[in-house]
């Protein structure tokens, strides 16, 4: 039903392509010649130590940080240099939950995802209301629609940001460490929801994530980034291996297979020695 509604509303299916992307802050190169692709319906997780360039990649792809070379394209359209309002119809970003605009209601905040579609008076039409309604439904926020954001829990606030990105009706979605500050239950709820939406709506999802075990459960592909360079790209089983992770995070780790799913599970070596 949801995906049918999505297609009826003309949502594109598209592939995200990052091509030799380089970013510098002043003289310091923070991202160097990174290339990969995210296919429709696929979740690609960005992993790597703090400061490796994961957030920078997401900010550069969403046009808020200038790039020095390379391309970010969706179905062949170059996004670098595109106006914010055009880009916002192609690519949506779910930021980390923060205290901002707390006095707005959930519905008002989600409606702001419709910015690129609203007229110059900022008035919402039927299509905008329908998109917001659908996004609230998909994120299970319909009963919260009139609550103030500030009065929600951290997990609920993060779902508001997800709903806002869904309301943008884009074929590509980027998430910047969406599970930070969430407890286990809310982490898995949110990621399961993202995974379900990615499959149903055939979204290309690029997500920076810290927790490697969550990555191996939820991601279809993993890109390991260290010091601004792409070190390793592949399935979780290919990337999350003891030699890659130990080197990248400068911490000796052991990797075992999940007894049921076979997904790689990671332990710092200090733990498994006991």
């Amino acid at each position, binding site marked *: 039903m949801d995906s049918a509604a999505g297609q009826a509303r003309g949502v594109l299916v598209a592939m995200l392509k990052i091509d030799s992307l380089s970013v510098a802050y002043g003289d310091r190169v923070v991202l160097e010649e990174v290339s990969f692709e995210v296919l429709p319906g696929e979740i690609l997780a960005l992993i790597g130590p703090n400061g490796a360039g994961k957030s920078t990649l997401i900010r550069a792809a969403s046009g808020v940080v200038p790039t020095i070379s390379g391309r970010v394209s969706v179905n062949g359209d170059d996004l670098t240099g595109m106006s914010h*309002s055009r880009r916002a119809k192609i690519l949506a970003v779910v930021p980390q939950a923060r205290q*901002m*605009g707390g*006095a707005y*209601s959930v519905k008002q905040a989600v409606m702001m995802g419709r910015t690129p579609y*609203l007229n110059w008076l900022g008035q919402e039409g039927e299509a905008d209301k329908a998109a917001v309604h659908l996004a609230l439904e998909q994120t299970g926020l319909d009963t919260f629609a009139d609550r103030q954001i500030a009065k929600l829990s951290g997990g609920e606030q993060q779902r508001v940001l997800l709903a806002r990105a869904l309301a943008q009706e884009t074929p590509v979605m980027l998430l910047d460490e969406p599970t930070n500050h969430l407890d286990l239950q809310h982490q898995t709820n949110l990621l399961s929801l993202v995974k379900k939406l990615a499959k149903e709506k055939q979204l290309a999802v690029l997500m920076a994530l810290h927790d490697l075990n969550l990555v191996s459960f939820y991601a279809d592909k993993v890109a390991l980034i260290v010091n601004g360079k792409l070190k390793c790209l592949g399935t979780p089983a290919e990337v999350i291996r003891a030699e890659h992770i130990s080197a990248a995070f400068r911490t000796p780790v052991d990797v075992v297979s999940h007894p049921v799913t076979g997904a790689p599970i990671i332990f710092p070596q200090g733990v498994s020695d006991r």
Partner: protein
Amino acid sequence: MILDLSKLIRHRPYLLNTLLLLTAFIFSVALGAVFIPPETIFRILASQLSGLNITQDWPESFSAIILAVRLPHTVLVVMTGAALGSSGAAYQGLFRNPLADPYLIGVASGAGLGAVFSMALNWPTSLLGFYLVPVGAFVGAILTVVLVYNLARVDGLVPLTTLILAGVAIGAFASALTSFLMLRTELQLHRAISFLLGGSPIAGWNPVIAVLPYMLVGMGLLTVSGHMLNVLQFGEEEAKQMGLNVDRAKVFIIVVASLTTAVAVAFSGVIGFVGLIVPHVIRIIWGPDYRRLIPLSILGGGSVLLLADMLARILMAPSTLPVGIVTAMAGAPFFLWILRRAKREVFW
């Protein structure tokens, strides 16, 4: 019944604020050295319309008082309050700070300097002088805001603390220049000082005609910027990711809010607190949506300044206090009361 009233307040913001403004308007025209009852006011107004046959049952002087003095004065006060309320709301949204108001960031002082500078040229002896004053105030306001903005910018960002420090410093500098101008030129000092305290020194329709076009354009454009202000509340980066052209939106809002402030200052002087209090009260009662906050601040600003103006005329009758003194004396404690009451709720 009480429940109905609170429901009415919550769901009919425009109706309520319009009624308040109309009531204040009628009282403002009625009050003065002689009280002229509202009924007579309506009859005098109606008698001005051709085609209506109304027999005059009031003293001749009443017509003159209403039409040449009280009506233009009241209209000017309403427009000034509306401009201050709506530009205050816009500045608060733009800088994402409940304290931002035209005075704190130096814009009002810059507008005051521009206005006094134009007055020093040929004010108020010619009609041209009238039209120059708002232009001078606007130029002063824009120069100030551009200067403050650039001084406050660090690595492409404008942190709030440097913004307000730069605003206070530039504002003080502009005020000093204004005082210097008043001392060194032929300007009628008394009039300029009463202007700076927030008392409109000129009566009649001329100032109303001089500010009207700017006010309509300024407040109209502020009303249109409501959605941009909403999106900006989530931070500039997220606003860009949601598809807002942030740089263009910021320049647009700064220019329009400064224009609106400048015209308010040009003919009514420096009146504090209206731009701070009105948007706050509206936000507390009707929420943070700027698409509604700005037009409601226009209506509410008009009512609040009319109320202050009536007090200014009554308190020490027959002499009149500068309205800026009243808004500051009533506004400061009221603001503190709001802050204490509002502590546990989220309005921002």
